[in-house]
């Protein structure tokens, strides 16, 4: 019997337009979909992740083909058509699934490569899965490993420091304008992941106050809570220009929301204190003419990309390094997975016991004086017969289905009983030679 397949289904910002992603996102929290997935009998363990940029469904099962359809139908039926789901979703199995998850956790798959938010989201999602006991041994191990991979990437590369990001550009420009961002006040106009991230980065650099302006006050208040800031309505925007230094705008408005004349009025009240505008919105929110005012600096998304371009070379190097780490760790994990399968376990068990027999025979036979070749052969045969008898029941336990302990569990039990550890499977050759000595 084959062991379980790891299957990963998902959509992300790269392949799927926002309009579809929005429909697929699990907006109602994790509890309800996790509970619903219990209905599917073939799933051994499963895990869900949903953020604004991606939805990932990870599960282990015996029949990946059938399960894939069932899971998708259960989660997304009624939201989008089957065709749409089929077109937008990607599906990975085993090695590929592991690698993809590691890429996600170490933020190499993010819209803003190197941002750290995803790790928190992943941990949160995993907390739900383990609270509701929907994950299994393999998924547990996989998720824990993905956290440590992310940590390794973060400490061994500079990918987080010089993140390929609008936020990074915003901070860099802010530094050239204000010197020090400490104590600077930030206003977030509209909401969106990129704007929030940029704001978060600025706050991380010491920016003090945060004002959130939004069309709907409720959303503004929610965001303001997250940053310990204040919420204001969009109609107060011009008045607030006097109180802030950095404005990040990303509303969905189809027209400009702020004009040169209004900013120039605010600049008089500010007595020339510099203002730094970041316009992430497409189409733009801020009148490009604003940049012509003295002590006012306006950048739209293309300008910020130019800043990011500046150290692309350095970043590419870091990304290569990070990808190497991910690959390395995926290989290690796959080795572990392999070791958890039936055949290698049986083989290893045999090898271990054979090694013991050989050691003991090598120790005993030379001490027995004057025994013939034939007698020697029969002693050897006896030793391996004892070993075989002792191994019979454990082997049987491994091979035959058990009503209450599943195979993965049984393999793990036997491995720990006989001390067959992860390293053993790769180092079995080495340990064998050590035993021979």
């Amino acid at each position, binding site marked *: 019997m084959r062991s379980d397949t790891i299957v990963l289904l998902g959509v992300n910002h790269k392949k799927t337009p926002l309009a579809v992603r929005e429909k697929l996102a699990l907006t109602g929290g994790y509890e309800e979909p996790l509970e619903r997935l219990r209905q599917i009998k073939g799933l051994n363990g499963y895990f869900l992740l949903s953020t604004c940029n991606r939805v990932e469904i990870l599960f282990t099962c015996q029949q990946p083909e059938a399960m894939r359809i069932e899971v998708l139908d259960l989660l997304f039926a009624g939201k989008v058509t089957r065709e749409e789901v089929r077109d937008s979703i990607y599906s990975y199995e085993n090695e590929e699934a592991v690698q993809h998850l590691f890429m996600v956790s170490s933020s190499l798959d993010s819209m803003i490569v190197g941002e750290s938010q995803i790790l928190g989201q992943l941990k949160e999602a995993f907390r739900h899965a383990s609270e509701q006991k929907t994950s299994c041994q393999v998924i547990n191990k996989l998720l824990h490993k993905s956290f440590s991979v992310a940590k390794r990437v973060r400490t061994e590369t500079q990918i987080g420091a010089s993140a390929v990001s609008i936020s990074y550009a915003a901070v860099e420009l802010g*530094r050239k*304008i*204000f*010197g020090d961002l400490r104590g600077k006040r930030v206003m977030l106009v509209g909401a969106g992941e990129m704007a929030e991230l940029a704001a978060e980065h600025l706050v991380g650099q010491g920016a003090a106050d945060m004002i959130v302006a939004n069309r709907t006050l409720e959303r503004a208040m929610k965001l303001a809570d997250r940053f310990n800031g204040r919420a204001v309505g969009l109609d107060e925007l011009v008045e607030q220009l006097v109180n802030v230094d950095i404005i990040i705008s990303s509303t969905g408005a189809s027209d400009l929301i702020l004009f040169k004349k209004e900013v120039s009025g605010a600049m008089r009240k500010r*007595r*020339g204190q*510099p203002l730094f505008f970041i316009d992430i919105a497409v189409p733009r929110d801020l009148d490009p003419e604003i940049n012509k005012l*003295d002590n006012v*600096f306006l950048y739209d998304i293309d300008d910020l990309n*130019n800043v990011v371009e500046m150290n692309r070379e350095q970043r590419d190097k870091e990304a290569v390094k990070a990808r190497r780490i991910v690959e390395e760790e995926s290989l290690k994990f796959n080795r572990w997975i392999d070791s958890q399968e039936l055949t290698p376990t049986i083989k290893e068990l045999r090898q271990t016991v054979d090694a013991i027999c050989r050691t003991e025979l090598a120790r005993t036979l030379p001490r027995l004086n004057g025994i013939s070749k034939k007698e020697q052969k029969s002693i050897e045969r006896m030793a391996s017969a004892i070993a075989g008898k002792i191994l019979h029941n454990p082997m049987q336990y491994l091979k035959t289905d058990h009503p209450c302990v599943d195979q993965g569990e049984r393999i793990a039990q036997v491995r720990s009983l006989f001390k067959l550890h992860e390293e053993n499977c790769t180092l079995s050759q080495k340990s064998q030679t050590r035993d021979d000595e």
Partner: protein
Amino acid sequence: MSYLLFQISFACYLLATAAYFYFFFKQDSLLRRIARGGFFVAAGLHTIYILVRYFEAGHTPITSIHETVSFFAWSIACCYLSFRWRYTVKNFGTFASLMVFILMLIASLASREIVPLPPNLQSWLLPVHASISIVGDAFLALAAIGGGMYLLQERELKQKRFGFLFSRLPSLEALDKLNNHCISIGFPLMTLGMVTGYIWARQIWGGQDWHWDSKIVWSMITWLLYAGLMHQRFVMGWRGRRASLMTIVAFCAVLLTFWFLLVGGHK
């Protein structure tokens, strides 16, 4: 002896300037250390040179063209070091050392002969008036250098090019602070220099008519320009581009006054 001192300090300034420029391109911190060390040694030797010259000439060496320009260079070097000690402005040394070097070059080309002091300049007010004015001018020179750097950096930021200069020039805020700092020291010193000059003139001329020569007219214009800048800056909240432009324009007036002083001599 004094000639040798001057030459060595000149050579050190040259070394420091070259190292600062090389550092500006390469951004290698070893070069910066060399540049800083070289500049510091040069300024020290320069100080000794001025002291030696004082004893050789028997009066404060701020009378001939060589002496005045060299003293101006020395003041800029010292002013730069004085606030370098308090806070750093990225790559400011590159521009300041260039200015010092150019002045030293001019000083080295001028006649080094020691001319005896004309009787009307023999007064205790000579060192007071001249050194205060020149040190004040040195701060204004640094303000102008900062202003120039501000305009360069602001252009990078406004045109969104983010090229070579963008990463090498300091932040606008740092340059604006520098401008603020230098002008608020330089302007009072300049004013004090003018007051002592007035007292001195009254001493010499007594009740005679006031001599309106071009130097005095230009120093009045310069003072008015800086006074206007101070007013705009601290009362009207001028800053950034306009303040930097104004600083540079006003410093041009300082240089013109200097020119008239050197050409016309003191009467």
